[in-house]
């Protein structure tokens, strides 16, 4: 029987994220300012997001390097396994091959920390102390709280005030 799990090593964690804006056959319709209904400029978004994320929002670079500190946190659970669902295939009596990418192995249990960790990292670099967000069933809120704790722990002696806090609405 073929392998059940196809595992990558930590060295094989991708070095960059892929930005599809570089390859879209037609450009994405612009984001508009809610009052003027004209395309937003970076300064409009600055009260909400760190500049690095605003740049990523509009970048047309195909590959954007993953910062080292983010990769260090990714290593806690990445690469995630890819597994072949042999038993499901057998139960369905199908000739199809079914592969599952399993994102449930992260500490909060979903794919959400992939971006939470990056977002907290860029916010912290800009000196932000507190992050607000919304969460529905809680996957996102728990991922952001987790990411906050990852970078807060690095702030030795700044416990409390200096620690990144996330407030979830």
């Amino acid at each position, binding site marked *: 029987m073929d392998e059940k799990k196809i595992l990558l090593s930590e060295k094989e964690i991708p070095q960059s994220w892929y930005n599809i804006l570089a390859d879209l056959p037609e450009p994405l319709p612009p984001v508009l300012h809610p009052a003027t209904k004209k395309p937003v400029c970076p300064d409009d978004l600055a009260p909400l997001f760190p500049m690095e994320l605003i740049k990523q929002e509009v970048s047309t670079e195909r590959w954007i390097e993953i910062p080292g500190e983010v990769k260090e946190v990714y290593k806690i659970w990445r690469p995630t396994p890819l597994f072949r669902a042999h038993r499901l295939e057998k139960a369905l009596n199908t000739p199809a091959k079914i*592969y599952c990418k399993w994102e449930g192995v992260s500490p909060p249990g979903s794919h959400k920390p992939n971006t939470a960790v990056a977002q907290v990292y860029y916010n912290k670099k800009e000196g932000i102390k507190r992050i607000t967000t919304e969460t529905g069933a809680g996957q996102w809120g728990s991922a952001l709280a987790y990411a906050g704790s990852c970078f807060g722990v690095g702030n030795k002696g700044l416990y409390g005030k200096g620690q990144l806090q996330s407030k979830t609405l």
Partner: protein
Amino acid sequence: MVKVSYNQKPYRRIMMEVWGAKCVPSPSPDTESGKKILEKDPDCPGSLGIAISEAVEDAVKHNDTHYSLGSVLNHVLLHQTIIGLEAKKALEKIGDYPDIVVGCIGGGSNFAGFALPFIKDKISGERKNLKVIAVEPASCPTLTKGPYRYDFGDSAGLTPLLKMYTLGHDFVPPPVHAGGLRYHGMAPIVCHLYNLKYIEARAVHQLETFEAGLTFAKTEGFICAPETDHALRVVIDEAIKCREEGKARTILVNVSGHGHFDKSAYEAYLAGKLKDYAYPQEEIKKALKNVPEVE
């Protein structure tokens, strides 16, 4: 946190508290947008759109505070591409490539993060025949029933306007719906690619998604998040089609998370308490009246 979930699903809230975050049920009296909604409807169960308004308002009012969004925006999808890039690398190792890529969509981040590195090859023409399927709940049918137009990302209309398929920014999901994926809009990148026909969309009913989740749990073992069960439904449907047509296609699915904190939804399903619900077209029409005219 959306109030209905705050009360019904305490475990993720407790996780947030363990990691040092403060979690507030929304609508809350802490913000102007929350207060307004509570004045109109003190028992409002809350929605993602309302919670976004409150979180954005709080961030704008505090200098040391930023806002963070867990889906929809381009940079969120960008970070999630690590999923698809890893999947592609792993398949390369065994010399395989998918014919069909499947993921569930709410705001679009797990689906896009998984599918975009493969859609790259479809756009370039290298894998013209690749089929990419986004699966959404029939009770929140953004791509399959919403129109493609500019709308706000939140209920109060504080966010910029995004061009997306939308059910209207004041959409409040039907409480019968158990399986997440409740956002009124969709990531602009996903909408754009759907509009350009690089992506197909399917709406599935909740009973058939839990049935798929149970089949998966009984064969592969993992009890997945109810959101993921939407994708598994379509994987099973496609695998059955392969059997009927005698075609050995390769299907790749993103299993976006485990369902350890969603057991009450499974309990309701096993007890026969869940019902199917298709979001009615009239409701969509009604909600769209409040969507701003741009073009």
